[in-house]
């Protein structure tokens, strides 16, 4: 196997993971991202790592360009064409507000009202044509729009998931008017009901397609110039890859590809280490992302809200984000209670100890005051040689005084509170799905994750925590270990009993065929194609559905009993004789790639006690003279006990008193409560 490289293009940094033989890790690095042309940052990373593209078999990468374009509203100027009478579906949403409390704020639809148009046509929910498409009017509209500065046209008709002929005809007419447009029809993007969610998803696709197409073209050209003629695969938010050439048509599918890649990598590392129930926690400067992996498979969310009234109805790895990070600010509320976050000091002004003008005490300041991070070797700081611990101490003193707390007590209180906030969210992720968090291993990563993982693990009652070798660039690794994936789905909305003979089987078989055809079109060398089916099911009348893994050959009785088993797992009971409904049928087609075998290192020092590089006082309830380890010194088989600090270029890890650590064959640190 030749070289592989995984690259995660984030908003601030582009991370790279490189293996020259698919086994050994040869390079891990971070370079600044280049938001004006993100493909440049990727090329920069390759060059910084000294990698000759011609020596690579495959480039795998994730990117936040799509996410950021939506959040910052930097996408394409689009027009939307809807069924007569439904021009505003995209803006209206489904009657809500931004927050439960607070009446202020408005939404910013991706396609403004002046660029939303209507055309006579109407289908019913079975797909029957009630009003034929008014082609004459549509042609006139297309001609008028051709004179406007528009890059993409989105078409979303009511019930198009049941019959896409009007949308397809509209696409032909639009294409005749302007062959340069990117044209998106809703039935191509989502084959399911719920007009607002489908229209929104189609609008996201149209909004991103020109940008993503440009990106794909630029990247392809630059890689060709460097002599790379093999395959580039891009991470999607469902945790699967897609070839660069297919990227433009799947622009909406790569929103949040970075966090998905992180979860994939964490799941893979944990599986190799022997854990298939995993909670992943990614903590950075402003947020904590948590996801759950059950039996090796990350949980999938069917709909994700990208921003207020911008739902995306595509399968995405279910990653929950809360405002808890190194920059989270501690304060005393009006009732006199200490609180931490969700307000963050951000990168600028940042924590007090970073000396960039920050004046509010943050989680990072608490870590600095307690000696948990090394004040003499600030990570990622070029502008200062030493953290300003004295200033952070002064802020702790001021914050703690009204509470009657000393400096270290205040800092510990901040950590306890922020750790609890993260632990609560972590617990909710498992408990709300009927799992016991004690059955899970915790994989923490991100710049701040390893500082807090031990406390989260203790609070949630998790037995084992895994610290990957390179927690700061896990998303880049995630790209390298993923497979190619296509998700297909179709609304059924019928009771299980009493539907036409063979309906389930026929729909699933069709989706299976479509998925395989797309897979063949990738031209990727695959070890296997794996197909799995699921049904979204509910009791009749329920709005929320459950995803139930099924087989095409199953009878109605088998489908119902599978649903009941999942329902019982989730809610602890069933609802007896209430009829069960299949809302939609889903098929996932996975193209299993040849992948790097995660380096298995010989146990260099079985049971040997690791030797610290230094010692320094670290506060764990009191000041304790604590051993400081260099991650590079920790070899498979070694052990050590907490309290301990492990330092490496991309992060600092805390092992609390009463915990033990050992290094496994893959150079992960496994931590357990003794």
């Amino acid at each position, binding site marked *: 196997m030749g070289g592989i490289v995984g690259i995660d293009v984030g908003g601030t940094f582009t991370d790279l993971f490189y293996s020259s033989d698919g086994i050994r890790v040869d390079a891990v690095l971070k370079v600044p991202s280049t938001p004006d042309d993100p493909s440049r940052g990727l090329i920069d990373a390759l060059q910084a790592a000294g990698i000759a593209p011609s020596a690579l078999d495959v480039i795998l990468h994730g990117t936040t360009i799509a996410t950021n374009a939506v959040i910052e509203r930097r996408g394409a100027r689009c027009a939307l064409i809807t069924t*007569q*009478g*439904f*021009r*505003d579906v995209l*803006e*209206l949403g*489904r*009657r*809500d507000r*931004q927050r*439960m409390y*607070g*009446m202020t*704020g*408005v*939404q910013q639809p991706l396609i*403004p*009202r*002046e660029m939303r148009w209507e055309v006579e046509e109407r289908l*019913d*929910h079975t797909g029957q044509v009630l009003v034929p498409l008014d082609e004459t009017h549509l042609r*006139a*509209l297309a001609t*008028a*729009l051709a*004179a406007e500065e528009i890059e993409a046209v989105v078409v979303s008709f009511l*019930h198009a*998931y049941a019959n896409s002929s009007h949308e397809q005809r509209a696409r032909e007419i639009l294409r005749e008017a302007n062959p340069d447009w990117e044209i998106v029809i809703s039935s191509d993007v989502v084959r399911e*009901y719920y*007009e*607002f969610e489908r229209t929104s998803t189609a609008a996201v696709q149209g909004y991103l397609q020109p940008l993503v197409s440009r990106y794909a073209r630029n990247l392809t050209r630059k890689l060709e110039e460097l002599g790379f003629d093999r395959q580039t695969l891009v991470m999607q938010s469902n945790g699967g890859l897609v070839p660069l050439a297919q990227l433009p048509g799947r622009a909406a599918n790569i929103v949040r590809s970075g966090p998905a890649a992180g979860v994939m990598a964490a799941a893979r590392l944990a599986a190799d280490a022997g854990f298939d129930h995993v909670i992943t926690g990614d903590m950075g400067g402003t947020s904590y992302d948590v996801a759950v992996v059950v039996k090796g498979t990350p949980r999938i969310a069917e709909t994700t809200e990208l921003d207020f009234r911008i739902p995306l109805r595509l399968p995405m790895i279910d990653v929950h984000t809360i405002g808890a990070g190194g920059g989270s600010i501690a304060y005393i509320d*009006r*009732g*006199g*209670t*200490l609180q931490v976050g969700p307000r963050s000091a951000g990168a600028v002004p940042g924590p007090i100890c970073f000396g960039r003008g920050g004046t509010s005490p943050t989680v990072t300041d608490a870590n600095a005051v307690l000696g948990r991070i090394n004040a003499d070797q600030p990570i990622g700081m070029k502008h200062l040689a030493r953290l300003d611990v004295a200033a952070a101490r002064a802020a702790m003193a001021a914050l703690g005084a009204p*509470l009657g*707390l000393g400096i270290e007590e205040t800092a510990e*209180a901040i950590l*306890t*509170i922020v750790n*609890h*906030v993260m632990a*609560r969210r972590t617990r*909710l992720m498992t408990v*709300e799905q009927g799992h016991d968090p004690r059955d899970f291993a915790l994989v923490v990563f991100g710049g701040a994750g390893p500082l807090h993982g031990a406390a989260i693990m203790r609070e949630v009652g998790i037995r084992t925590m895994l610290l990957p070798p390179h927690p700061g660039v896990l998303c880049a690794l995630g790209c390298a270990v993923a497979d190619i994936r296509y998700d297909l789905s179709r609304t059924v*909305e019928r009771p299980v009993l009493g539907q036409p003979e063979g309906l389930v089987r026929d729909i699933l078989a069709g989706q299976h065929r479509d998925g395989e055809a797309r897979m063949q079109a990738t031209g990727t060398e695959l070890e296997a194609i794996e197909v799995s089916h699921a049904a979204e099911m509910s*009791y009749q*009348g*329920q*709005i*929320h559905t459950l995803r139930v893994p099924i087989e095409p050959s199953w009878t109605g009785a088998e489908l119902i009993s599978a649903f009941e088993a999942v329902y019982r797992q*989730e*809610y*602890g*009971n069933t*609802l007896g*004789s*209430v009829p069960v409904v299949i809302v939609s049928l889903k098929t996932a087609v996975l193209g299993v790639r040849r992948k790097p075998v995660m380096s298995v290192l010989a146990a260099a020092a079985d049971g040997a006690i690791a030797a610290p590089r230094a010692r320094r006082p670290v506060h764990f309830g009191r000041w304790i003279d604590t051993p400081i380890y260099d991650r590079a010194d920790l070899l498979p088989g070694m052990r050590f006990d907490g309290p301990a600090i492990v330092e490496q270029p991309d992060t600092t890890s805390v092992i609390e008193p009463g915990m033990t650590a050992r290094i496994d064959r893959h150079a992960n640190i496994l931590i357990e409560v003794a």
Partner: protein
Amino acid sequence: MDPVTLAVVRGALEQIADEMDLHLIRAALSPIISETNDCAHGLYDPVTGETIAQGGYGLPMFLANMQFTVQRLIPIANEAGGFREGDIWICNDPYLSGTHLNDVVLVSPYFVDGKLFALFANTGHWMDMGGSAPGGWVPTAREIHQEGIIIPPLRLYENGKRNDALVAMITANVRLPQQLLGDLAAMTNVFAVGRRGLDALVARYGVGTLRACIDEMLRRSEAEMRSYIAEIPDGTYRIEDYFDNDGVDDVRLTVTLAITVSGSELQFDFTGTSPASRGPMNISDATTRSLCFVALKHIFPDVPVNGGAFRPTQFTIPQGCILSAAYPSAVGGTTDVTQRVVDVVFGALAQAIPAQTPAAPFGTTGVATVSGRHPQTGQYFVAVYPYPGGYGASAASDGLVNGTPPGSMAKFMSVEMSEHRYPVRFRYFGIREGSGGAGRHRGGCGTRYGIETLSDTLVSILGDRVDHAPFGVEGGGPAAPNSVQIETGGRRWIPPMRSKAEKLPFAPGDAFHLASPGGGGFGDPLDRDPALVEADLNGGMIDMATAESVHGVVATVVRTILDRPVYRVERDRTQERRSAIASTLDPIT
């Protein structure tokens, strides 16, 4: 009190209530619970009934209502031998538990070592409780019995065993008994979720520490609430607003509110409000008080939700008025009456703290129900479409379009899903142009939609705000009022009560057309940024006449796209026109 333990215990208690919310929202059969979160869960003090913690996912409407309900149930339970292990109490008596008959409350005591430690309570909206119209919205109800069955406070479970006779009595009197049983089971199961969480907390901290933390939590929330009230200038702020009618007599109803702020105390005085209506436009005093807190929390979103926050407030609600319903008044208009309570609190406080307070939102939940037998399945159905509408503008922003009522988080059903489930067809569903109140910040526009029925059905509509539009503040204009039109046999007509109509028989092809109000404007429309006026024109949110006369801009059509004009507002000439208007308005010059 150790500040860290306090923070952790508070978080853990809130988490228990949150987990209970999430559990029911996902497990309920009633689409009103599962899609619109029409439920609430919490822990309450077993002696004072004060809220210890309430879930963050349930409806705002129940914010304080749950506490008031529990407070009234405690003496009733005590007279019946007190709370005992294995008991679950049930009640939907709205004079006691607030809102309407469809909101059923369950209360489950929690014991530690045989001693009563707390009460768990929840409420969930059940689709149908019997009565003369499906769904409980009876616009012409003259007494509660037309709205459904009343379940007085009773032990649903005794010693862990369900009273099946009671359940049979209930299911025999409702239209969707199977669904009701599912919801009852789901609500009962949620208590196990709560108990597990509290068990873990008791095991970790012990009863003594928990009790001390809870007392301190409530004390601090009270201090927090007082600090907000203290920032409102002392004084009395008055407002009066009106309902169209009660659906029975075509006479307007008055809501009168005087808010008096003195130091850190807040008094709500509803003296002058109309006596109980003959129709269903009544709510219980518990609900009135709860909605005052909802309004406060919309103005100060960071105020914590527990009993301490309710302490610095006092209420005067005259007995027998529309805001303190007593037997046998009908209460099905709760969805509209509650909204008006929020509106008047906004209207009064906007005089004191305009920088924080929004103008009136659309102010009517205008519930339309379509019911009948589905022609394909023969099964009975009730489809419920509650109004969306515009929000009032504020110092911070324009108003939102298609908002949910301030006391609610309920969504509007998907058009496509509606057409799958019910014999209905939407003809249109869109923004109601020109319906937002003018102002420096514009109120959000209302929503208009037309629904045609495809089989024989009964249609009822229970709304308000046709005669009295949502108001603007700080010089902002009012929004467009509500509009209801019925189309039967090819003829369009307005119902005699304008915003209310009951059980109209619809044949296939008949339809109703609703246009909800927008929100009020904030500030002088002449101060609106000309660029925003231009955007409003191009988006069709206002017309040229409004732009010129109300906003004082000079705009021209620069071109058209198909038949749609593209406007440009000319900045210099707009400046001149506005100066001219200002000088004619200014009495000194």
